[in-house]
């Protein structure tokens, strides 16, 4: 029994270990009072959370929003995403495509809600952020202050490491600053979020270029994270590319624009490519006063990697898009570009990425006139300086890393973000940051580096349990009118207001299991928790405060009983319950309750019945002891359970 504990078992009791443990054992948690979730059937996460590369606990923060607890929502987001304001604006939000409401109407505006809570913080002033306690003597160097770098810095500093970010440019933010135009991502937002991370105790060295990794190790850094991004545009590789002036790499173009230069690149612009950079470039060009902006993309709109919304906005602003066309040759005159010959394409079989491969249609060439061509086909990292550090480089000029651990071929050197994957999304970069931080931590502590595999989406069907019959239209954030956008780099999309945010968050079907917030354990000081199996039959449990809940021993003791390895476990508050069928309304419970938590109420037939107010009940169980019929009982302390305990003792 309790007195024969083995000292060796885990006693950390920290949230994550509890959850890890529970997950491992196939145990899930339900806390009806706080999250009115469904009983948990299997261990799954909601599909949105699974879809999120960073694993943001979306349902949880949506739940917090519905309760109007925006601060808590922010905390939940920040647990996994240190850049909510940024993500709330530029995230490609794969979560929304997985949203189960999307299966019958518009998905939730998760991204907009995230932005809302981030902006809420900005507007109302963030809580004073205290620097994290330094608990570990090791230092980590992070090269690059883009989202990947910032995320890993954030995680590592919270773990107690000393973290230094080296940034080549004078401002931190990487591609966030240089690549994304301010009308989508205002600079103050980026700054604020970086500031928040810095406040945690991260050292940020701008204007510092890192050339030699070994130097960093010499300076005492135990690990290095290369998050240098992909800032070098790829060549078009068509005839004429190098002959004429007026062919610009869009990254360079955007960097200039984003730095505040407002020079018009030309009048008629062609942007080649279909990604967000292409759209950003095109829309920026319009804002710079270019009269005509074309986008040439070799596949159809369906395959276009840019955000659907962005494409729509671009079209609305006047960008013309030529689908199914690919450049063949640059045409110029007098060293100046005058146009581009394209060929029409058709879509063939899908390729590895699942998109249908474009095939040129013979003799379908046509010419588009232009004076500037912005190439936005892809980028790669500036990697040359690391080539001789003993780090392996792929044939695409990216770092070669272990996919799971992100460690490069050089021990202690990790790499992530665009520098590994090539140009990708902010949220992927954040995810890489997390992974890197986790791996670095384990590397420094000398633990094996492997990380658990990412969970799969188990439930994809709309089950009646999760289907809310009430339909509600997705709220669209307001935008500034198109006519005002010309020559303005002001932010286009506006934040939701509070009412809107709550209304939108309420559309959440709360699918999947509980919010997994373990808020219950953290918040509840008044009550204690016990864990019981489904019907409370196979008893287990814990009577004690969450901190000394010693879940692991107790649960494992229980779980090892009779092969019950994957028992379903709930966390329930200890309160009195009254069975209506058994209660004869004698009122004895009422008379002994010191808290007036149990009251005898009159029924239609004039006779009475006891009723417990669970919110007031403190769980002393005195009512149960005076109840003559056994109608009143304390959860987890039922007479039957105690009798069983006794019988077990006497064998």
């Amino acid at each position, binding site marked *: 029994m309790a007195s024969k504990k083995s000292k060796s078992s885990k006693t950390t009791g920290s949230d994550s270990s509890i959850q890890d443990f529970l997950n491992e054992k196939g145990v899930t948690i339900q806390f009806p009072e706080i999250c009115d979730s469904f009983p948990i059937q299997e261990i799954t996460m909601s599909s949105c959370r699974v879809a999120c590369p960073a694993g943001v606990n979306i349902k949880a923060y949506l739940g917090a929003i519905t309760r109007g607890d925006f601060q808590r929502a922010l905390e939940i987001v920040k647990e996994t995403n240190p850049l909510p304001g940024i993500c709330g604006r530029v995230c490609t939000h794969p979560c929304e495509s997985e949203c189960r409401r999307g299966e019958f109407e518009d998905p939730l505006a998760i991204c907009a809600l995230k932005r809302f809570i981030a902006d809420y913080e900005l507007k109302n002033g963030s809580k004073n952020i205290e620097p994290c306690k330094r608990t570990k003597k090791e230092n980590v160097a992070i090269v690059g202050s883009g989202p990947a770098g910032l995320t890993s810095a954030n995680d590592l500093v919270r773990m107690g490491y000393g973290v230094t970010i080296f940034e080549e440019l004078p401002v931190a933010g990487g591609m966030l600053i240089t690549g994304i135009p301010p009308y989508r991502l205002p600079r103050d937002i980026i700054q604020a979020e970086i500031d928040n991370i810095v406040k945690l105790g991260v050292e940020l060295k701008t204007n510092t270029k890192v050339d030699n990794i070994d130097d960093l190790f010499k300076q005492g850094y135990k690990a290095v994270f290369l998050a240098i991004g992909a800032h070098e545009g790829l060549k078009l590789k068509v005839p004429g590319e190098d002959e004429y002036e007026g062919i610009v790499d869009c990254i360079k173009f955007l960097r200039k624009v984003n730095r505040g230069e407002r020079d018009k690149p030309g009048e008629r612009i062609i942007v080649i490519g279909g990604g967000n950079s292409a759209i950003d470039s095109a829309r920026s060009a319009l804002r710079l006063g270019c009269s005509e902006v074309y986008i040439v993309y070799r596949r159809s709109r369906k395959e276009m990697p840019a955000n659907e919304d962005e494409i729509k906005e671009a079209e609305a602003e006047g960008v013309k898009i030529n689908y199914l066309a690919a450049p063949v040759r640059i045409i110029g005159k007098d060293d100046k570009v005058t146009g581009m010959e394209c060929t029409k394409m058709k879509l063939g079989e899908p390729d590895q990425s699942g998109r249908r491969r474009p095939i040129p249609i013979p003799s379908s060439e046509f010419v588009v006139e232009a004076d500037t061509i912005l190439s936005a086909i892809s980028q790669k990292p500036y990697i040359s300086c690391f080539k001789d550090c003993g780090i392996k480089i792929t044939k695409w000029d990216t770092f070669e890393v272990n996919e799971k651990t992100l460690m490069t071929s050089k021990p202690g050197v990790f790499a992530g973000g665009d520098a590994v994957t090539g140009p990708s999304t902010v949220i992927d970069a954040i995810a890489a940051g997390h992974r890197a931080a986790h791996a670095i931590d384990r590397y420094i502590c000398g633990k094996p580096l492997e990380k658990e595999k990412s969970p799969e989406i188990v439930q994809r069907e709309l089950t009646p349990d999760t289907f809310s019959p009430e339909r509600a239209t997705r709220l669209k954030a307001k935008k500034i009118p198109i006519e005002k956008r010309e020559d303005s780099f002001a932010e286009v999309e506006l934040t939701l207001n509070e009412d809107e945010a709550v209304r939108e968050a309420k559309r959440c079907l709360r699918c999947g299991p509980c919010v997994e917030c373990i808020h219950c354990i953290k918040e509840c000081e008044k009550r204690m928790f016990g864990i019981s199996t489904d019907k409370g039959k196979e008893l287990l449990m814990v*009577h004690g405060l969450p901190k000394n809940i010693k879940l692991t021993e107790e649960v494992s003791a229980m779980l090892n009983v009779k092969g019950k390895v994957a028992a379903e476990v709930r966390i329930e508050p*200890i309160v009195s319950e009254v069975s209506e069928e058994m209660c004869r309304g004698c009122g004895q419970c009422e008379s002994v309750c010191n808290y007036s938590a149990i009251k005898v109420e009159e029924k239609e037939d004039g006779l009475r019945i006891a009723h417990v107010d669970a919110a007031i009940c403190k*769980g*002393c169980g005195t009512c149960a002891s005076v109840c003559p019929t056994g109608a009143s009982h304390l959860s987890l302390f039922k007479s039957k359970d105690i009798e069983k305990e*006794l019988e077990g003792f006497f064998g």
Partner: protein
Amino acid sequence: MAKNFIPKIVAFCCNWSTAPVVNKAVESDAQFPPNIKIVKLMCGGMVTLAFILKAFELGADGVFVATCRVEDCHYVTGARRAVDVCDNTKKLIDMLGFEPGRFKLGRFSSLEHKVFEKAINEFIGVIKKMGPSPIKVQRRTTASTSR
């Protein structure tokens, strides 16, 4: 028999004072007597006649009820209630033919694990002198099938 006799004791303990006391006692002292079943209750007020009788029925040689000190009760009046219940119980188990010493009520604060340990050891000593519960002998052969 008497020499090797290790009494089986059931102790009903309040969660707030005596359960931590028990925990502490268990942790601090390996000498804590074996064959004691600590039944944790949320409050001394939860103790019922039925639990105590049940323990005797199953063959307990002694039953100990440990609550907070009356003035310290976490739930205001629980410890006081336990006194009333125990008074009634005493009368009944006396009538049923158990020696009065087999049942005891003790009160402890959450720091008094030494006191608790002492009380328990004393209680065990008393019971050792008395010998096994009168119903124990035949219980042993029949309890398993009767329930």
